[in-house]
């Protein structure tokens, strides 16, 4: 009789111990999950903060494009005043301080789809698949390409 009781009690104890271990394990996991989440979250927050202005900067890039086109048109007519270049430099400076960088493009170099987008392929005396002309500037924000440079590529 008492042997049976002991055996039942041992079973119960084993069950309890198993449950205890599982619960402890679950609790530890939950705690670890939370700590890891906090770490991930703070990392993510850094990225979010860094790129929080991306939308605004993307819009401003379009304004800069128009500025470039306006300057080119004025240059043609010989009407481009120094002041206008200075205003452009001001805008660019502000954007640079916020992490914006221009994609460097050199005519005659091989076309690079990592940083450039081909908008047309043209007949040219340049070697095939090299950049003939940069028609729109490309930009990187904190090293991430947010707009490829738009180029004409030799056939």
């Amino acid at each position, binding site marked *: 009789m008492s042997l049976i009781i002991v055996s039942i009690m041992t079973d119960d104890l084993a069950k309890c111990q198993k449950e205890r271990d599982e619960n402890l394990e*679950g609790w530890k996991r*939950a705690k670890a*999950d939370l700590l890891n*989440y906090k770490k991930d979250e703070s990392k993510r927050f850094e990225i979010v903060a860094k790129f929080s202005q991306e939308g605004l900067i993307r819009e401003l890039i379009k304004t800069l*494009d*128009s500025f470039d*086109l*306006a300057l*080119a*048109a004025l240059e043609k*007519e010989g009407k481009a005043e120094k002041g206008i270049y200075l205003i452009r430099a001001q805008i660019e400076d502000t954007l640079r301080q916020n992490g914006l960088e221009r994609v460097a493009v050199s005519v005659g170099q*091989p*076309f690079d*789809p*990592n940083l*450039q*987008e*081909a*908008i*047309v*392929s043209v007949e040219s005396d340049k070697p*095939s*698949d090299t950049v003939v002309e940069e*028609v*729109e500037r490309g930009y990187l924000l904190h090293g*991430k*390409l947010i707009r*490829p440079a*738009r180029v*004409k*590529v030799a*056939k």
Partner: protein
Amino acid sequence: MAKILGIDLGTTNSAMAIVEGGEPKILENHEGARTTPSVAAVSKAGERLVGLLAKRQAVVNPKNTIFSVKRLIGRNFDDKEIQRDKSWLPYEIQKSATGGMEIKMGERWYKPEEISAMTLAKLKADAEMKTGEKIEEAVITVPAYFDDSQRQATKNAGEIAGLKVRRIINEPTAAALAYGLNRKKNEKIVVYDFGGGTFDISVLEVGDDVVEVKGTGGDTHLGGDDFDKRIIEYLVVEYKKQEGIDISKDPLALQRLKEAAERAKHELSTAMETEINLPYVTSDASGPKHFLMKMTRAKLEELVRDYIDRSIDLTGQALNEVKLKPSEIDEVILVGGQTRMPAISGAVKKFFGKEPHKGINPDEVVAIGAAVQAGIFQGDVKDILLLDVTPLSLGIETLGGVFTALIEKNTTIPTSKSQIFSTAAENQTSVEIHILQGERPMAADNKTLGRFILDGIPPSPRGIPQIEVQFDIDANGILNVSAKDKASGKSQSVRIEASTQLSKDEVDKLKQEAAVHAEDDKKKKELAEARNMGEQTIYLAEKSLKEAGDKISVEIKDAINAKIGELKTVKDGSDIEVIKSKTAELSMEIQKIGQSIHPPHDNADEASK
């Protein structure tokens, strides 16, 4: 356990998602975008490019840039669809030995599944980088009308990319999974999927744990890209009318116009009118030319009306084929970016006579659903300890009968929150903690859970004692509320068993009431706050008068007392504006006390010398 990737392998774009912490979420690709163009290419230098990079060089390398391969996969070369597509696809296709087809890219001929595998391999690699884990298995979606051969070919594409394909599921089924509609027994669901290049309509029926496709329809050559083309055509024609210049001949101008058209389309989903403004878009002999045009939502809708009508006709046809009436459909799901257009969701709503589901980003809903299916395989759903949330906000009554929530609704439990409160009257020695539950801003409109009194607070001016009220809900939903006076250390608490045990109906009813009375309640709360502010100002005024004593003139005293009188007569009324203005007047008046005791120095420099 290794993650299983959910993949929406689309005709124009693909997306991927995983289940993390029980929730499906979209994974961004290496370039930081949430969708990846389904494009592969071999560059002139012989380099293989996939996704955005392949797309960027498409113009200069059209013969070796392969897109829309989903239109070819698993089909026979002699299919009439293939013969039709072959005529407009810029790359070369030939019949393979088995009757299928091969695509020429660079120096080699590839099977369509090999091309699809390139997109899949990129997604796999990017997902591995993003999660920092090896990914070996995937759930991939296909259109509901795909036959066995197309499904097998898609599966093969996955295997070629190094993924064990746990299951090929239908895109509409994935969308239903994303919305959790697979649990709704015996419902009939329509998925209206307006993508970039294709329009699919699917009728589903949810049986016992299975989602069955009853019928399909659509147009494989109708999509959002057609909308963009229409807008661009319209703008080009209008510009020609205005300026006499054909802008479509200038590649940069056309590129800018394309972007502007897309932006206008997006903006007109929320705004009624937008302006397309492209300075220096081109030039002619007379000098630079600008592009400035207003576009209204009505104009956009007029331009694409026939496309929308056609999609609705096709929806009707698909229903006819399975002998169902629009009214017999229980749920409608919108998929595809183009469904963001109000005219489309409006047309769908009108046709079915019910509001379609559109809460999940329509570009991502299929990938999310694929991840949900992957999560089921992964067992993530089971592993998670189910934690309850409080269905309604819990809090106490504060000055003026206002309900102040300590634990907001939908907070996961167990949790505890505390906040410091104070007394409202001079020498108040006890406070009543009135515990309430509900969403209405005034205490009287919410449900009382209990109340108790904390006494023995040492007499002191109002606002000085610090009484910490703590709400603690354990995992079983049992609420413990305690209040403690920080100065005396005296505390009191109560235990409430039934804080979360409201039936779903009760909770819904309370939430509904809150919504119905939102406007009224806001006013009541504003009134209570205005009165509180008034009372506080009166208190401050009286206190200041007492403190100032004889230091101020009788005129100032009388003026303040007059204003106090005025405020007292209006403060119990119900005109918020009057109470606010009288309070402001009294505040102005009180400032005169300070000015008369410490006259302002006109010349601060003098004073500091």
